[in-house]
């Protein structure tokens, strides 16, 4: 048992103060350097960033021993750790966590392009001792995270439908964690991307906006299935750059008509993305950000991971998308208006009265509903028939349909679309069409978007 336990000195491992790393070669010749990152792995292990093959690296591989001094930036307590080398990981979750953090440290210290992670060197910590300090008392905690998790845990359990669960989660982040900007994204299992289903604290909701797997902290958290956070924004993880790159990847000079803008802050400093696991796979991401640097620490990561675990548990419990809880109020619309709907089969994008609504699976669902209504006058549909419809090509997991229905319902409200989706009983939806439809289906061959 190491004392003090590493999990109570995690402030030392945030990269605020460089650590000192000492090694020796086989002849006892010492080497000492500053290192930008010592990462907390668990109560008995830390990882150092391996960035260059140098004397330190040779010594570690030769003797397996290192000694580091880390400092708590708030109490100015100097801890000395004796380390024994275990292994190097050059890919995978731990590597990605450290890569994101190092990118933030590099950005903050003007060393972007110089600090590059080649590997995560994992060490067993043989001993921890206090060399000096504390010099100052630790600052009062701004909030009690354990209590915040407990209250959120309880409140999320009260949600009776999926859309309300998303909203309650964001509400809890705001009230109990003082988080002002947050997004919930659901993974699109068929297309290797995530789409926004709820957001808080932005000028525009961004509902329906997409992030590719592996892009930015959200995409990396989803791909690796681990929380990713960054305390100082780096160009490598910025969504401004990400979205530009995506556009360039697709040969696009300007955003497509069907691209919903990502809602994020224009100049975030701190970001955290926590995977939402359902049945052992990543079903979504809970994301929060702040213009304040170093806003999210190890303890915030633990707390938000528990909220995300609760969210995942409830997402997998069979909640329906459209429920009895009060949703957004319906806009007043003129009765019996003509509503024009155009559907592009190429990507299932749907335009209502020439305004882009949605694409992908949610677009296909909407098109199925309005086409059926137009053909037969039917207004009620069961979730089961949507789930089983081979034309919709829904992935096998139930929450995929429900999350898409949340997305569709929210886009309809947000776009002030006269057509609405309502609950018509357990497992049933009602399509409300206050007018006459005029449908236009653009088949794949002529389906190139020009709007």
């Amino acid at each position, binding site marked *: 048992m190491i004392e003090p336990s590493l999990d109570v000195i995690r402030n030392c491992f945030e*990269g*605020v*103060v*460089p650590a*000192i*790393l*000492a*090694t*020796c070669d*086989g002849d*006892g*010749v*010492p*080497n*000492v*350097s*500053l290192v*930008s990152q010592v990462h907390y792995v668990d109560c008995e292990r830390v990882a150092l960033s391996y*960035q*260059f093959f*140098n*004397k*330190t690296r040779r*010594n570690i591989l030769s*003797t397996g*021993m*290192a*000694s*580091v*001094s880390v*400092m708590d*930036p*708030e109490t*100015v307590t*100097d801890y*000395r750790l*004796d380390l024994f080398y275990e292994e190097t990981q050059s890919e995978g979750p731990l590597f990605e966590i450290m890569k994101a953090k190092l990118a933030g*440290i590099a950005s*903050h*210290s*003007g*060393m972007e392009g*110089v*600090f590059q992670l080649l590997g995560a060197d994992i060490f067993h910590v043989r001993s921890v001792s206090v*060399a*000096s*300090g504390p*010099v*100052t008392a630790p600052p009062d905690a701004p909030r009690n995270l354990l209590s915040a998790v407990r209250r959120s845990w309880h409140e999320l359990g009260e949600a009776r439908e999926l859309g309300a669960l998303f909203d309650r989660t964001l509400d809890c982040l705001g009230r109990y964690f003082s988080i002002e900007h947050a997004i919930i994204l659901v993974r699109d299992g068929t297309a290797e991307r995530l789409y926004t289903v709820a957001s808080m604290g932005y000028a525009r909701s961004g509902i329906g906006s997409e992030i590719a797997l592996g892009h930015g902290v959200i995409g990396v958290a989803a791909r690796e299935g681990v929380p990713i956070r960054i305390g100082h924004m780096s160009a490598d993880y910025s969504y401004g750059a990400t979205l530009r790159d995506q556009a360039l990847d697709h040969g696009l000079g300007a955003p497509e008509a069907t691209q919903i803008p990502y809602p994020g802050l224009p100049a975030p400093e701190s970001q955290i993305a926590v995977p939402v696991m359902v049945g052992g796979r990543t079903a979504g991401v809970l994301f929060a950000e702040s213009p304040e640097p170093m806003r999210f620490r190890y303890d915030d990561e633990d707390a938000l991971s528990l909220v995300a675990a609760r969210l995942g548990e409830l997402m997998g419990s069979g909640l329906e998308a459209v429920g009895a809880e009060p949703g957004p109020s319906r806009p007043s619309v003129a009765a019996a208006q003509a509503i024009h709907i155009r559907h592009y089969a190429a990507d299932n994008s749907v335009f209502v009265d020439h305004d882009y609504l949605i694409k992908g699976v949610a677009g296909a669902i909407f098109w199925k509903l309005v086409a059926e209504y137009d053909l037969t006058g039917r207004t009620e549909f069961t979730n089961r028939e949507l789930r089983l419809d081979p034309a919709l090509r829904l992935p096998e997991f139930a929450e995929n349909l429900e999350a898409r229905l949340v997305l569709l319902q929210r886009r309809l409200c947000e776009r002030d679309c006269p057509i609405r989706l309502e609950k018509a009983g357990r497992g049933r939806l009602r399509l409300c069409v206050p007018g006459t439809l005029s449908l236009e289906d653009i088949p794949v061959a002529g389906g190139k978007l020009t709007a």
Partner: protein
Amino acid sequence: MPRADQPSSPSEELAERRGWKGETLANGVLTTELAEFCQSGISVVLASCDGGGRPVVARGLACRIDADGRVRVMLREEPNLPFLKAIAAGASVAATFTKPHSHRSIQLKGTHAEIFRPAPLDGPAAFMQTSAFRDELVSVGHSEAFSAGYTHFEPHELAAIEFLPESAFVQTPGPSAGSALAP
């Protein structure tokens, strides 16, 4: 870690040393410019090796370099007792000097070091250099409280070690970091 507006690079350091035409100290290991850099009020960190072959880390406060190039590093005794014990047992020493603003960093190594009680000039030098270092930490974004705590010492805590550097290396992050500084 603080921001470097214009980070230094290892290749610049190596080129400057190769092109150095001025006076040198410690049998050519140090240029007078490097000696000045080490005494300018920057980060000083130390390492040695204990009897079991394990590395021992230490934090220095300041340094004085005499006309022969002997490097005297002042440090707090109590927090660095394992290091001082290793030095007393005759182990080698490494000292790395780093300026946060530019990340410029050099390492000096010596095979023998001696431990001294503080000399009359050590206290004032440590006070001046830690004050300069504190100001630098604040200027690169650390809080006043942290910067003061990081550089704090009491005069009665001081000890000093002295060694003649036998080799110098560039430690500034980047390609060629760790290369020997030589003419």
